[in-house]
């Protein structure tokens, strides 16, 4: 028979995304049977992170200090700001591109039908940055969903009002993909957003 504490551990592990009762049980048994030291480290770091990690004052990324590493760095380009929906989006851009500018995280997107408005996405903080910093370009990297498009449009209006150039990341056929297997909405978007081939 399982003790109560074991049941609590299994139940607690189920708060992780994609972890059902069976996976939670496997994780709990693994930690108890094979990796107690790892379990202690996990519990200590998790507890500290939950207590100390907050949001960066400038970009809203998770950080334990007032500013995140990007905002605190003097080597980043202050004339560009990339607006993304989630911390995962920011990490993807950081690892996949050579982007050296600033970021702003919305932590969501405009969704009128769900009652999510501009104030819920930290727009007042962004507007403050557009006013006080010498930003020349806002790169809007929201998802190509209906809500992401609505958010992008709101952001471009905001940028224009502050005399800042707003650009949108391109979306269309994935690299290595075949046109035959692309859905019609993606293909139509890619077709409408076609570029002139540079021959140089």
């Amino acid at each position, binding site marked *: 028979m399982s003790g109560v504490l074991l049941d609590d551990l299994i139940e607690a592990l189920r708060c992780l995304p994609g972890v059902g009762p069976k996976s939670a049980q496997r994780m709990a048994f693994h930690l108890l049977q094979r990796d107690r030291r790892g379990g202690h480290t996990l519990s200590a770091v998790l507890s500290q992170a939950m207590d100390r990690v907050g949001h960066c004052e400038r970009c809203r990324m998770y950080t334990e200090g007032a500013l995140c590493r990007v905002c605190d760095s003097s080597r980043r380009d202050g004339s560009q700001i990339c607006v993304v929906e989630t911390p995962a989006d920011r990490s993807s851009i950081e690892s996949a591109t050579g982007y050296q500018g600033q970021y702003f995280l919305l932590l969501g997107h405009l969704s009128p*039908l769900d009652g999510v*408005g501009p104030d819920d996405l930290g727009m007042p903080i962004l507007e403050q940055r557009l006013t006080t910093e010498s930003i020349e370009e806002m790169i809007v990297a929201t998802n190509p969903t*209906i809500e992401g498009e*609505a958010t992008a*449009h709101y952001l471009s209006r905001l940028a224009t*009002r502050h005399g800042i150039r707003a650009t949108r990341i391109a979306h269309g056929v994935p690299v290595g993909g075949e046109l035959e297997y692309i859905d019609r*909405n993606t293909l139509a978007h890619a077709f409408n957003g076609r570029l002139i081939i540079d021959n140089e």
Partner: protein
Amino acid sequence: MRVSLTPGIVLHQRAFQDHHSIIDCLTLEHGRISLMARGLRGKSSRRAGIIQPFCELLLSFSGRGDLPLLGAVEPQGPGRPQLQGTRLLSALYLNELILKLLPPLDPHPLIYRHYLSTVTQLPDCHIGDTLRLFELTLLNEMGYGPVLDYDTEGEALDADALYQIDPEREPRRIHSVMKQDDQVHGATLIALQSGAFNSHRDRLESRRLMGLMIDHYLDGSPLKTRAMLKNFHDTQR
């Protein structure tokens, strides 16, 4: 219930657990219905690009209870119209109207067809006129439409006269000039009836009239897209 490839349009999509979505749809034969789309948000989902709002699809679903399971989906007709900014929000406004006003599983083929033609026209039409005509069709089909051809006395409407609007009665002709939100000119009611808005006043008053009617039947529930459209306009200034 087992339905195979019936025409339908996605109105809204909500995340459910890690990889699934609940989609609210308007179908031609079954009216408004919510469906569980398993794996729609998964990394390898090929259906995410097809299951998009504002375009007609052929939807299969099966199951008992309030949330049938979405099965096969096939595209039908042209893809998603290219909508941006105010036009995109206006299309979301249509969706919110249907979600809030139309009861589930109550088919209205006329509303379905009018919705489809409205979103197809939205990329390059007069937004206000198109929205007013959709609002009118929606309320008329549900049996809540305003009376637009005679007044409380049974008299034909006079374009120059002022009328007081009561959402549940015929317009009442008034002789005093009291500027109130529930008063419109006869010309506005005639314009709404004919679908041809000839003046700025027709447009302003018909927007006010339809807003009054919709608010009455929403019974205090606010329209979030309407508030956001206003917010967009304020940002533009």
